């Protein structure tokens, strides 16, 4: 706290406090150079994803065999073409859209499941044991193996990749949420609400959840990186996006046969994946510092 006493000059000014807090977090985030770089990359990816049809001059799936395997820069193809003569840049741009959509939906779904389980097991000690054993069970599988198992059951498709990755995200998220609930639950303001006779739902939604947001936001950001990487990995293995979908992992898989004749087919989507995953990770890291509750008070 800067000062406890409220000065009269301060009293009349009404600021939207919630926005100010967000702005403060953003300002702290901007002090971290790597995080700024990450945010720029992510912003760039989002722009590409939204404006893909206007940015790409070529259709990402229409083949043109007379122009196959052109190198970068040749004949108006900025990043060259692949073995079917499709513009690499167009495929990259549409791929950005796919990895973003898959990332967001799978993280959101995983978050919903994890929040539900985490809030319940943290708040109701009686259900804690059962839910946490279930979570342990999910943890027992190596992540990518669990995803492959789910896809093996459901069939190969991008939708199933989303489902697999969200299920894979649930246990980690549930653990994180449970941990924060356990610490927030003991706070006096929660006890005060209980002594007022507030219902459990009210206490959980209005008093516990808003105070657990910091670790959840960090988790979601970091998880985006994992989700994008896993989508690429699963597609690379042929379990996710099927040709001719311009998915980055699938593009690498298609390019590996031409590693020596047309290395740009693997290198370009590889760099894209690396950049985006790196970006989400550094932003997540930066957010962890920026959202530190101890720093929140120095307004």
């Amino acid at each position, binding site marked *: 706290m800067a000062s406890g006493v409220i000065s009269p000059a301060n009293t009349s000014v009404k600021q939207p406090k919630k926005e100010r807090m967000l702005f403060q977090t953003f300002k702290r985030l901007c002090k971290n150079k790597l995080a700024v770089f990450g945010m720029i990359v992510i912003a760039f990816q989002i722009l590409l994803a939204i404006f893909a049809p206007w940015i790409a001059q070529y259709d990402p799936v229409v083949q043109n065999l007379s122009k196959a395997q052109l190198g970068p820069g040749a004949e108006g193809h900025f990043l060259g073409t692949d073995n079917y003569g499709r513009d690499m840049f167009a495929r990259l741009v549409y791929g950005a859209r796919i990895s973003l959509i898959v990332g967001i939906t799978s993280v959101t779904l995983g978050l919903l499941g994890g929040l539900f389980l985490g809030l319940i097991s943290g708040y109701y000690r009686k259900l804690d044991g059962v839910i946490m054993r279930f979570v342990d069970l999910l943890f027992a599988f190596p992540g990518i193996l669990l995803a492959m198992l789910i896809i093996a059951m459901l069939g190969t498709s991008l939708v199933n990749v989303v489902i697999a990755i969200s299920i894979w995200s649930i246990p980690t998220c549930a653990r994180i949420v449970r941990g924060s609930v356990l610490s927030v639950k003991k706070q006096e303001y929660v006890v005060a609400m209980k002594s*007022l006779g507030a219902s459990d739902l009210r206490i959980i939604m209005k008093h516990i959840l808003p105070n657990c947001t910091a670790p959840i936001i960090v988790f979601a950001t970091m998880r985006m990186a994992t989700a994008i990487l896993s989508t690429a990995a699963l597609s690379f293995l042929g379990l996710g996006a099927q040709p001719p979908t311009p998915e980055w992992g699938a593009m690498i898989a298609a390019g590996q046969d031409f590693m020596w004749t047309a290395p740009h087919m693997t290198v370009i989507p590889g760099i894209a994946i690396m950049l985006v995953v790196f970006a989400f990770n550094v932003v997540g890291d930066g957010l962890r510092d920026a959202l530190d509750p101890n720093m929140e008070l120095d307004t």
Partner: protein
Amino acid sequence: MINSPQPLLKVRDVKKYFPIKSGLLRKTMANVKAVEGVSIDVLEGETLGVVGESGCGKSTFGRTILGLEPLTEGTIQFKGQEIGGLSDRKLKKFKKEMQMIFQDPYASLNPRQRIGDSLEEAYIIHTSLKKAERQARVRELLKEVGLKGEHYERYPHEFSGGQRQRIGIARAIALNPSFIVCDEAVSALDVSVQAQIISLLKKLQQSHQLTYLFISHDLGVVRHTCDRVLVMYLGATAELAPADELYKNPLHPYTKALLSAIPRPVPGKKRERVHLKGDLPNPANYPTGCPFHTRCPIGTEECREKRPDWREVKEGHYVACHKVSL
């Protein structure tokens, strides 16, 4: 209690144990006896102080009365109705009548909620008032505890400790309760703010006909604020007397030791200090007989074996000690 006002709260043999569980089957290995058989009446309109060292079960006792901790044993009657062991739903109508003021003004307010919204919760939960009416009430409430109506819009971190404690008090009186547990309500504040908060509590006691259970470890504050004082030791009641009587004429050896520890502002005037040997026993391994016998300067064989009765030795002066005779 003869010739005295109606008891608002009748507490009989209240016990609160926290089980220590271990092993695969979560078997109860031992109990931490936080409150071990407390029987008192809280009279309407009084301020009953509860004192004792850290870990003697004062706070747990307060929370148990309010139903924040499930009761292990005993009965609690509020205005003649049994409230011990009621389910949360049945307890809800009593929660309007019984409130709590918390110790740590920095932890007792939701940091993500505006003050006004925090205070409004009470009306959302218990009344069917419309939003505008609720807000008007909250603004009035803020004024009543010495804050301004426009503080409604602010977040807790913009207030000082004393101001936050005022907000905590506002929340406690929002529903017009008759009984408030002040759990170390002024302990976290510095002395000048303490005085302000105490006078606010006194003012509200007058205007709202409140009864306080004032839990504190500060014997000086208790002397000034309380009508009667209950001394607790290791979850049990040691002595209960009107404040003046207790401070002038302590009977229980523990009370004597406690009172001799009050720092005196008079230089040169030395007071005989009673030093207690040893530490507070582990409440998970509760002593037999009188809970105080392990540290008592005048304890005998009898104290080790038999638990002393809670008896009235003078009018309104209760003590649990074999050695006290009057």
